[in-house]
């Protein structure tokens, strides 16, 4: 078989915003930038906000990071033909997230996903798939965000993590006030409390 090889990845670099979020780079060019509305107006389920910060190995915030989120809707359906089940009109389930350049904080609004199908008839606890690119990251980092208020004990991915205390690095804490529900999810690329990253 004459298989081809995947094109090698290269860093997204510090100016990733020009291509993927040009307004953040400082100019207005496209009729609509992609990825700002993950769930759309018709999505059912709990409206949530997710916030966090990405830290480097010295503990400093990574201010030029870009994240992409990929998630199912509130009943666990992905908006994709290979899932094939219905999602609400306008629900894409994909978002693009950048930081505040001064603080490195990021956040996005969405609906809380439902449990999804796993392999071999298993069920995966509700989660948001994340992909992280930045200057200094040669190949995008994959991880998952799970929710502290869900039963994650039977999740087949979390249970693969040998050092059980590291499972906590994938679980977002929940906070609820008059403005709504916010989950906090900090990502540590390296060092103490290093987030579990996935080879998918």
């Amino acid at each position, binding site marked *: 078989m004459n298989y081809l090889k995947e*094109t090698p990845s290269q860093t997204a670099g510090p100016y990733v915003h*020009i291509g993927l979020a040009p307004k953040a780079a400082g100019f207005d060019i496209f009729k609509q930038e992609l990825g700002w509305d993950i769930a759309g107006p018709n999505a059912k389920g709990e409206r949530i906000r997710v916030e966090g910060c990405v830290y480097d190995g010295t503990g400093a915030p990574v201010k030029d990071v870009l994240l992409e989120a990929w998630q199912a809707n509130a009943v666990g359906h992905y908006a994709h033909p290979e899932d094939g089940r219905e999602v609400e009109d306008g629900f894409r389930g994909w978002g693009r997230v950048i930081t505040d350049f001064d603080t490195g904080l990021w956040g996005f609004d969405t609906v809380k996903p439902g449990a*999804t199908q*796993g392999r071999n008839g298993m069920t995966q606890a509700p989660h948001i798939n994340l*992909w992280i690119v930045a200057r200094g990251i040669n190949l995008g980092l994959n991880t998952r965000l799970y929710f502290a208020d869900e039963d994650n004990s039977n999740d087949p991915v979390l249970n693969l993590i040998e050092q059980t205390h590291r499972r906590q690095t994938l679980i977002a804490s929940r906070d609820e006030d008059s403005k709504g529900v916010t989950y906090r999810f900090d990502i540590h690329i390296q060092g103490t409390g290093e987030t579990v990253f*996935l*080879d998918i």
Partner: protein
Amino acid sequence: MKPAEYYMRDRQHHAPALTPDYKTSITRSPQYALLSLENSLSEITGPVFSHNDIDALDNDLIKNYSHGGDPIGERIIVHGRVLDENARPVPNTMVEIWQANAGGRYRHKKDTYLAPIDPNFGGCGRTMTDADGYYYFRTVKPGAYPWRNWVNNWRPAHIHVSIFGAAFAQRLITQLYFEGDPLIAKCPIVQTVPDPQAIDQMVAKLDMNATIPLDSIAYRFDIVLRGRRSTLFENRLEGN
């Protein structure tokens, strides 16, 4: 046909996370092993886009930020196909690019290089591949520029390329370089990729047949995303 897994990503073909000659990677590289997952529905699905998401002019960087004129620089066409590792086309997938202008300056509030901004050049574009996986952009050739790594580092002329594929597992960002550029061999970012043949996959080739006489030079850049098995015999990926 039941959906099947993507081939394992060959991480020896890619740059490792820690590449000390590219200094920024030192504190932005995980130290622990990645957790290897077999694909679930979460990985074999991914965002779906359509032509409604973009405008017709989005793939023309010579016109998409025109403020009464064309950008300065060498007019080029960048075109090619998006394929998977089985050499099958990846149709209807989003390709996005961004780049510096002909002087090596980015239109970004954080870029302070002394080369001037071009009033007619934004530096980004996007398009969808057709049914054969084919895509094309029109732009100007970006300039080389200095960056802080060692005292004297210059990036080879390059265009950043983002490709979605059909699944989150195929998501990829790479950089396109230009055939014959002597800075390729000197660049610590390019050289994070260990295999010279792999580096050559990132080098767009002069394509005289696609060059438009008296108008634009063309470069060919085929992109390969992960392939997948065509059959799944047991241990079904999906639930019941």
